């Protein structure tokens, strides 16, 4: 009985807005983005994470002669930023894809919450991402994951309809009940689709706990971790290790030993003869689903709540989302690709994440990723920008 370890890494950075976009900017000033910080943040993360980690992954793929496999979902907005500021990073991803050991996964181009507000917009963004991946990598995706693993029955049905074979979600008890995340399932609403779940304990051991000195398992060695992975043999078929790619070198700095850990890990995993690495679509082809997962409500991989409350739920977030999508039909009526693109970049989920007011526990993580001092500032900037966009739409005659 073989067990597959399935790595999926999320690669994403938003186009952040200018923190000084204020009331007086509305009207005269249409430059919304903080170009300088976006460039410098991207270059910083490229040097700390993307480049060294890509090198490491390439080395591991070569070292293990194709037996080490991984997958990525790279958002459209970060691909654009690579093209703008760091084409060499894009090249290093292309080199990885060229090994044949890497699967690319589709998502919404703008890393958006569009499925929650507009199915049309959702489909358009998924198609845009599909095309972008094809254009840059010559690759056709068959696996889908929604922004931050936001998932429910309805989403699965839509994704199945769009022709995908495999979908990823958070392996949380709320949808699993007594069952284990370490099997392939199918969505109750989309029986032809294969559903792969994240093993959040093992994923978060690397992504969140790796350098936590207060953790009783600190320090985490590749050996120790492999023994946990091996303990699943006999009662599981697939182990979904899903995490942000920035885990390597950015969330966990190099001096925590995260790169050494990752470099040693495949060999330790291979020490057990039943273990192998597979990409999501390979897993889906290998293992028949063991049963349906019924997820009426939304789940996600964010915060301890693993629901939508990182982006929605407080009045500022809700009003911001409503405001943004209220402009959809007018924006599209302009048929102006640049304006549509500008609007869509505002739909990136990070803009709502910054407005989160859940301070305890998760608040720390929010603060880490948040360029603003507080959610109120984030909200005001976002609303000011939307007001300027609305004004532009009025001037174009597409809004009364």
């Amino acid at each position, binding site marked *: 009985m073989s067990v597959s370890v399935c790595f999926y890494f999320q690669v994403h950075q938003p186009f952040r807005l200018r923190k000084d976009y*204020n*009331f*007086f900017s*509305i*009207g*005269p000033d249409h430059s919304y983005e903080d170009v300088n910080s976006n460039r410098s943040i991207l270059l910083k993360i490229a040097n700390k994470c993307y480049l060294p980690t890509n090198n490491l992954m390439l080395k591991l793929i070569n070292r293990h002669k194709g037996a080490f496999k991984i997958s990525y979902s790279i958002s459209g907005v970060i691909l654009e930023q690579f093209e703008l500021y760091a084409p060499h990073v894009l090249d290093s991803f292309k080199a990885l894809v060229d090994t044949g050991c890497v699967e690319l996964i589709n998502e919404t181009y703008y890393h958006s919450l569009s499925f929650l507000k507009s199915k049309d917009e959702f489909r358009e963004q998924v198609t845009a991402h599909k095309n972008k991946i094809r254009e840059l990598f010559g690759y056709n995706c068959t696996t889908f994951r929604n922004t931050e693993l936001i998932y429910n029955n309805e989403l699965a049905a839509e994704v199945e309809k769009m022709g995908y074979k495999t979908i990823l979600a958070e392996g949380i008890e709320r949808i699993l009940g007594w069952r284990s995340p370490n099997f392939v399932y199918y969505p109750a609403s989309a029986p032809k689709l294969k559903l792969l779940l994240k093993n959040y304990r093992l994923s978060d051991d690397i992504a969140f706990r790796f350098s936590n000195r207060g953790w009783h398992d600190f320090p985490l060695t590749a050996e120790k971790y492999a023994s946990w992975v091996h303990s699943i043999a006999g009662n599981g078929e697939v182990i979904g290790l899903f995490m942000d790619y920035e885990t390597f070198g950015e969330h966990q700095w190099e001096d925590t030993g995260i790169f050494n850990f990752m470099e040693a890990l495949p060999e330790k995993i291979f020490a057990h003869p039943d273990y192998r690495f597979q990409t999501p679509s390979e897993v889906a082809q290998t293992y028949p689903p063991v049963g349906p997962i019924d997820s009426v409500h939304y789940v996600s991989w964010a915060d301890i709540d693993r629901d939508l409350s990182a982006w929605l739920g*407080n*009045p*500022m977030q*809700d*009003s*911001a989302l*409503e*405001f943004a999508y209220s402009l959809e039909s007018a924006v599209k009526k302009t048929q102006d690709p640049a304006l549509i693109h500008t609007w869509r970049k505002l739909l990136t989920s990070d803009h709502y994440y910054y407005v989160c007011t859940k301070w305890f526990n998760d608040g720390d993580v929010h603060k880490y990723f948040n360029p603003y001092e*507080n959610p*109120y500032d984030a*909200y*005001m900037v976002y*609303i*000011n920008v*939307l*007001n300027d966009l*609305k*004004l532009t739409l009025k001037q174009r005659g597409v809004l009364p």
Partner: protein
Amino acid sequence: MRVLMFGWEFPPFISGGLGTACFGLTKQLAKRNVKILFVLPKIKGASQVEAAGDITIIGGQNYLSNEIEEVKKKISFFEKEFTVNSPLRPYISYESYKDYLEKIKEFEKESNGLHSSKGNFSIDFSGDYGQDLLSEVARFALVGRYLAQRESFDIIHAHDWMTFLAAIEAKKISGKPLVIHVHATEIDRCGENCNSEVFNLEKHGMENADRIIAVSHRTKEIIIQYYQIDPNKISVVHNGVDLDEIYQYDKTTRPFKNEKMVLYLGRITMQKGPDYFLEAAHLVVKRVQNVRFVMAGSGDMTRRLIERMAALRIADRFHFTGFLGKTDRERLFAMSDLYVMPSVSEPFGITPLEAMRYNIPVIISKQSGVAELLSNVIKVDFWDVNKLASAIINVLERPQIASSLSEHNNEILQKMNWGVAADKVIDVYNSYR
């Protein structure tokens, strides 16, 4: 005549009406040959925080700074040689005091060494920023004692409660008469949730004063009723307004075409009634399409109001600007079609007058001192949100009402200049010569 005057802010570093009033008054007193020794605490960190903000905001059009410099030349400022390092702010509440200290600490980390007062006498009043606001006041009193020993003057004039202890010390040492100038009371700021220590300090100042200047009859009544002070000791001197400082702005260049703009400008605190403005705005936007509301300022209610605004789903019609420097304040007045001051309790209320300089109508609450002076404005009870909303709609939708409300603005303002106020203050001084 030489006056030893204690104040808390002075342009360009101001957070409210007190700084504006001190500027307007001292400018006119100086013109009338009154020599003023103005003791202004150089607020460590805090003024720098705001100064940094001001510099960015003013940019190329700091048309005011020359005038401020002119006035400053005529007044001897003790801040130049005497630095009081204190985080005290005139409007601060106990709750926001802690936040404020944090902010200052952060700033100090960044600007380490920026603030050394070379060769000047400097008392670090709160090296570690003690948590007790009132002990800061007590320590500031040492300044009063020190100056009274060193300087010669004819009269002591103190603006608002934080300076009262210092002024009383100066009086004890010098034996000179003390005039206290009440711009606001704890009753205005906190209503029934009064901070009794601040209240007691105010009462102590009033009792020790030889003369009290109240900025309105409303304030005089409060002093009599709540502080039980002899009415004969109290003179009312209304504030004035400076007519020269006009921002040139062409309303036809406003980004929001065919829309009216309604302005609230003030601290976002309970006393100023910003929540009533927001609720009224909500009622108005439900009925009127082409209107936009702007709330300028900052304060301890800001976050709550932003959330409320979001919950009301009027983010495309209601804007928060945050704290603004002088130039942007003027720009907003110039952009607006209507000014609303819904204060719950306003000792005077200088902003409606500032708005009137731009020839726009104003709506003010009946609970304001300035209501005593203005007959040609709409006055509503601060709590009457429905009435406020209909008044706003009336002004916005009926141009003839708007113009009849603003047509006499200029004549009215001419009578309310700081010169008149300065003459009255000199009369108060002279009653002791």
